[in-house]
């Protein structure tokens, strides 16, 4: 049987959702019998491949780089899963939204810096005016809220998706869990 191509992408998030994914522990080995991880911060592949079956996205869309990345991911993914509150709601990264980019940079790069405060280099990705959830930029097929979503929930959702079914994760996770 052909293996399902799975990718995981890390945008603006704390990596906690990836950690939770790893918390599926030995079950991941079982999963790998049906699944091939074709792109992920967990593996060493530099470019996002084509024809990916399932992509898990952790993190919100916060920079112009995130926008480019997520659009490419969407274009090459059949089922896009927003994994965790940052991807689903904006969560902590979006807490800067009421204050605006300027105040955020000011705070992070000047106020809270003791030595040599510096404006971030122009080569760094540029912050968007507002941090937004993934589905505000591209179509998302399935949402798994949680901060992070429990490993069991991720595992269940993934096994269902791998079997070509839409999982029902009601009561298995919640915002902030």
């Amino acid at each position, binding site marked *: 049987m052909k293996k399902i191509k799975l990718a995981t992408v890390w945008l603006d998030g704390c990596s906690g959702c990836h950690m939770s994914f790893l918390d599926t522990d030995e079950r991941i080995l079982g999963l790998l019998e049906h699944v091939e991880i074709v792109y992920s911060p967990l593996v060493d592949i530099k470019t996002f491949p084509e024809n990916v079956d399932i992509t898990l996205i952790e993190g919100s869309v916060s920079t112009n780089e995130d926008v480019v990345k997520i659009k490419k991911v969407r274009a090459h993914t059949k089922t896009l899963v*927003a994994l965790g*509150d940052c991807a*689903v*709601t*904006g*969560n*902590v990264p*979006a*807490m800067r*939204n*009421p*204050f605006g980019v300027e105040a955020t940079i000011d705070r992070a790069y000047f106020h809270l810096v003791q030595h040599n405060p510096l404006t971030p280099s122009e080569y760094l990705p540029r912050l968007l005016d*507002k941090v*937004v*959830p993934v*589905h*505000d930029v591209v179509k*998302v097929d399935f*949402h*798994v*809220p949680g*901060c992070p979503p429990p490993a069991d929930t991720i595992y269940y959702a993934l096994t269902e998706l791998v079997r070509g079914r839409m999982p029902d*994760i*009601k*009561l298995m*996770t*919640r*915002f*902030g*869990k």
Partner: protein
Amino acid sequence: MTEIQSVQIITLTIDGKPVGASGGETILDVAKQNQVFIPTLCHLEGLIPYGACRLCLVEIKGNNKLVPACITKVAEGMEVITNNERLQRFRRWILELLFTERNHVCSVCVANGFCELQSLAEVLGMDHVRLPYLHPKFVVDATHDRFVSDNNRCILCGRCVRVCSDIEGAHTLDIMGRGIKARIVSDLDDDWGNSPTCTRCSKCVQVCPTGAIKEKGRRSVGEKFKHRDVIAHLAEMREAAREED
């Protein structure tokens, strides 16, 4: 509330199931007695019904308008529908609207795990919001030595205002402004810490469904356990005292 005619027995159906009730009871009362779940946010046992969150809207056969279960009294022969595709859809929308209105970041909220808004999203399967977040900016009032008021987490259910004015009798809190700009204030929008009217009774903390009003000294996330049932007891005591007068 006690009513003279409450001996009257009424039969009605809830979701097709025949149930009995006494006159004067609300649809919500009767649904609860019969283990039928109707979501609510602004309602709290012991407080005067408010009818504002619209989550408890139900259908009544023969009435083309939806009615709030928390206020509508049962009537003989009433056929109530508490749950169907349309009501589920409306409830999910209302939750989504609430989540977009303010800055509800469950993961860093003191009420994480004890929040009625959060738990309704879970129970009703609201897994993401389709509309843009409005991200307003509200100043957190931490001037009080015991409590903190954070309008960023407020859903304007009015419970704190009602408990403060109707149960405690202090009426320190009220809603100012209107529409999307409405928010909770203490006195003349002053620092809560300097309030000449606040009795420090902490009832507002107990009734707040979210993390908008919290007790100080709880350092991390998800530690805000509340004693909401106290209010119904207090209301009953008050009512009894009033009758004795």
